[in-house]
């Protein structure tokens, strides 16, 4: 059987004024890699090298200047509407900046509820699923009525993660998923991620600056430096 994979091919990304090439600055150059379901690719790199940018491109929410992303063998540019919707559900990203990725005008409950609605969980079951997920990421019910700014950094991160996990994606791009968590909770979350990976065969692209986390989680490690990706053992 054809195995489900997420593949980046010759991704380049330039920022700056579109027309004048002088001002254009390439952040990513010619990056290619492939991640299979159930596998973790760790990406490390200095601050500002383009890890987040790469993550966003792979997740399909930012356009690469050049290159393509393939999901299950098809370029995501050419996906039909239905396939794109599937891709959209199956490839998720957890942002580095957790508070910024939550709508400031929505309570935690609403954020969750809408995802539940999106994935078609019947209304009567939603409460149960929601509480389950809260417990999974280690949040209590108290948080349901809070707005993002009423949560601590780590709590925001948990909400963001929980929301993504609900979708049961095939691939998750984790951009510094535990940066705001204390070490015990970080450990909990890392174990949780591993557990889910084992159960549901999720592929991770884990972006982190912490060598320990990467080596704990990743099957393969790549380092992003000066726009290029180098695999290390």
């Amino acid at each position, binding site marked *: 059987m054809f195995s489900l994979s997420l593949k980046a091919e010759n991704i380049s990304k330039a920022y700056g004024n579109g027309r004048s090439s002088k001002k254009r600055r390439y952040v990513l150059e010619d990056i290619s890699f492939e991640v299979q379901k159930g596998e973790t690719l760790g990406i490390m790199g200095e601050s500002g090298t383009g890890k987040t940018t790469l993550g966003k491109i792979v997740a399909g929410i930012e356009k690469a200047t050049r290159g393509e992303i393939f999901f299950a063998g098809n370029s995501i540019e050419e996906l039909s509407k239905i396939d794109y919707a599937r891709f959209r559900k199956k490839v998720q990203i957890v942002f580095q900046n957790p508070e910024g*990725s*939550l709508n*400031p005008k929505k309570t935690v409950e609403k954020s969750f509820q*809408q995802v539940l609605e999106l994935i078609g969980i019947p209304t009567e079951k939603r409460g149960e699923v929601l509480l389950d997920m809260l417990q999974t990421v280690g949040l209590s019910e108290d948080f349901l009525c809070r*707005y993002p*700014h009423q949560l601590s950094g780590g709590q925001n991160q948990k909400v963001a993660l929980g929301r*993504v996990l609900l979708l049961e994606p095939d691939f998750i791009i984790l951009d510094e998923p535990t940066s705001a968590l204390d070490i015990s909770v970080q450990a909990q979350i890392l174990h949780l991620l591993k557990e889910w990976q084992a159960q549901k065969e999720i592929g991770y692209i884990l972006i982190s600056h912490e060598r320990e986390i990467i080596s704990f989680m990743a099957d393969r490690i790549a380092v992003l430096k000066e726009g290029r990706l180098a695999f290390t053992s």
Partner: protein
Amino acid sequence: MKKPALPRQNGSAQKKSLSSLLAVVLFLVFFILALCANIIAPHDPWERFDPYLPPSVEHWLGTNDLGHDILSELIYGSRVSLLVGLGAAVLATAIGLCVGLFAGYYKGVTDEILMGITDVFLMIPRIPLIILLAAFLKPSFWIIALVIGFLWWTSTARVVRSKSLQVSEMNFVLSSKCLGFSDKHIIFTDIFPNIIQIVIPKFMLTVAAAMITEASLSFLGLGDPSMKSWGMMINFAFTKGGLINALWWWFIPPGLCIMFFVYSVVLLGYSLEEKEQAVLGIS
């Protein structure tokens, strides 16, 4: 020894609910006036007494140039004014909101097209168009509401667009996109709540503008002059010597009515605002 308690910054919750209560009450009063005008009004507003009577026990606000009881006119006027004001404002705000949100969210070609349309609507010479319509349409106030609604949405659209351009760049919108929410969902549940503060005043302003415009339209020849509305009352008060003879009981009350009605809408808007500020914890 205990230090003095720190002053708490937020006002008492009671006061807040009071003002929203006031808003609701005020709004309802106008609503009831409009609904039950025939019961509440002391006279038939088309019945003619002596013209230009000053306020008296019989006519609390006197009579106008045709001898109509001004108070009754005022009460009946709420029907048309509320309908035109709210109708036009709802229409204009709805169109403007949608156009602005879509343009700001989709950007690119959609933005260009929508803003192009907005520009065109913005610059359509309104008065000629209204005269044109007046000649071909049967006069009625819902047509006026429609016309105002269809012509007055452009600035809302542009204002909304400028703000939603800002908001749609934020991470949480990206995040929603990534979760696979439909564009419609993102526009209305992610972007919209974050620009509502600009839409609320825009809406209030449109309510007032529509009520006043309705009067000036008749000045230009559109509409049925025998229709009773607050704007119309002000209009006649001026063309028929209300100001020059200082008949304040004629032109002030309809002005006040417009003002208070808009104020009730404003207060409603504010209580929304306050509720939100309360949850967001800002003062």
